[in-house]
């Protein structure tokens, strides 16, 4: 039973919330507008480092650091979007994945270690404000079957509040005529041009909004932990795509549900492997963790076969894709 409860704990952890938020941003790009952003990890990295450096190096207050970080992310989105969005869709994909890797290598390099900490990353000396406002009693807090450290639970509470507020805003946006234009662009840019819609402007707006949400996710992501450059590898972006497909792209709650399922399954397979190691089934954890990804792969294949539209997706909508 412990395995089950330990896995289900992932439903509400701060990491799940941060990934859900970044996936919501990616959904604005990919799900609603059809923009192929393969570098969402770059936006998340800008969020994490932008916030940490603003606080630790420049001594900004937390609200100012958040504002500076989000403006930085918007600038990065414009930098990537202005030259590429008027080209074919694949150019954005190439540029975003390359830019995200450039950012990661730059943050990892010793050249900027004075600010970024290089390969060591940054110790958490930036979430004092958040932890200082913690209303929960100190020590260990019990929530249902789970126990949390007081600070972790407070961070999780704030994170999920941000996720829900953002999801609400996205809900309103995509049901407005503005959101309808985004979906129209996803379906056919030329048709939208012929109806007088400034397609590039809308694509740029979508890129900035989704990117800023990704950066906000980066701020959340590093609150309970330290900042580690390796976290922002391309795998982070592809995990988010997995979440989108799991939960259902172009739905409001799909990315949130996707992130929850993803982390529960990751944790569950992890626990299974540990059990196998303890029981002598595997020689060591490395051998077992390879099996873990086999299990995750099998789960994904089953999903794509039996529910290709994702958990919340619309099957009728998907059935037209073949045409």
């Amino acid at each position: 039973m412990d395995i089950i409860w330990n896995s289900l704990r992932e439903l509400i952890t701060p990491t799940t919330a941060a990934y859900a938020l970044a996936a919501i941003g990616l959904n604005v790009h990919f799900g609603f507008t059809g923009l192929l952003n393969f570098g969402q990890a770059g936006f998340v990295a800008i969020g994490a480092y932008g916030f940490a450096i603003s606080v630790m190096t420049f001594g900004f207050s937390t609200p100012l650091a958040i504002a500076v970080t989000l403006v930085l992310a918007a600038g990065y989105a414009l930098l990537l979007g202005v030259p590429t969005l008027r080209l074919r869709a694949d150019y954005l994909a190439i540029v975003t994945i390359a830019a995200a890797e450039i950012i990661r290598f730059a943050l990892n390099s010793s050249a900027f270690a004075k600010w970024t900490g290089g390969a060591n990353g940054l110790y958490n000396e930036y979430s004092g404000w958040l932890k200082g406002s913690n209303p929960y009693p100190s020590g260990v807090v019990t929530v249902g079957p789970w126990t949390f450290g007081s600070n972790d639970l407070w961070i999780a509470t704030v994170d999920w509040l941000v996720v829900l507020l953002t999801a609400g805003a996205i809900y309103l946006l995509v049901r407005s005529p503005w959101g309808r234009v985004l979906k129209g662009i996803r379906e056919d840019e030329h048709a939208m041009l012929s109806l007088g819609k400034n397609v590039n402007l809308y694509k740029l707006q979508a890129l900035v909004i989704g990117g800023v949400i990704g950066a906000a996710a980066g701020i959340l992501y590093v609150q309970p932990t330290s900042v580690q450059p390796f976290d922002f590898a391309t795998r982070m972006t592809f995990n988010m795509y997995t979440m989108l497909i799991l939960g259902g792209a172009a739905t409001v709650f799909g990315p949130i549900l996707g992130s929850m399922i993803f982390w529960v399954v990751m944790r569950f397979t992890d626990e299974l492997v540990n059990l196998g190691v303890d029981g002598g089934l595997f020689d060591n954890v490395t051998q077992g963790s390879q099996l873990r990804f086999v299990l995750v792969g099998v789960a994904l294949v089953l999903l794509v076969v039996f529910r290709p539209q994702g958990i919340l997706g619309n099957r009728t909508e998907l059935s037209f894709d073949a045409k």
Partner: protein
Amino acid sequence: MPSKRDPILVADRVHRHFAGVTAVDVDHVEMPRGKITALIGPNGAGKTTFFNLLTGFDKPQTGAWSFEGKPIAGLAPWQVARRGMVRTFQLTKVLGRLTVLENMLLGSKNQRGERLLPFFWRKQERSDSARALEILERFKLGAKAHDYAASLSGGQRKLLEMARAIMNEPSLVMLDEPMAGVNPALTQSLLHHIKDLKNQGMTVLFVEHDMHMVRYVADWVIVMAEGRIIAEGVPGEVLSSTAVVDAYLGAHHDTDLRELVREMEA
């Protein structure tokens, strides 16, 4: 060529070539306002390229043209559309994973709700929806309003594209082969809709191959061949002119083959 009274669109010296092959080389052309003009010509005559150039979807090497008296060469396609010149496509472009009604609503212009911070748009949305449903009813798509556009047949897609263009309230509607791949019954209804556009005060330019339909619906005919305009006038005259017949059927279509063979042997 004589100038027409009050043309809605005037184009001069429009030249487009692709890697040395001349696609469009139009010296001067005018579209009469409030009329249905047919642009005809054999395959490869440059009709669609000319369409793309006029609507901003392609850029010519040289050329100037004005719409409603204002120069519009060099404008982006969406800017051209906002001036009131809306086109359809030879291969229909419906927005498949949106409903028929949503397709229509996207045609409506100056929507408050399409700005980045969409507030106070519901009133306009209601009146737009009412207008959209009324147009759909006219195009016999009313029952389909809440279906995905991807579920429509080829002919229905043509109708939807035309209806969506009307939703934009253009002054010039440009239809690229509206009748291509459409069954005869639907062709009749499309022709009826094209005439209806004129009755509502719009100017229509359409590309077509079928001479009978051109004769039936057009007030003015412009003939293109090898990128140039080789003739224009009222349908009755143009369609019987030798140049046009030659362009379509070849210059030797009524020559005895044996004569040709003798000429070649000599």
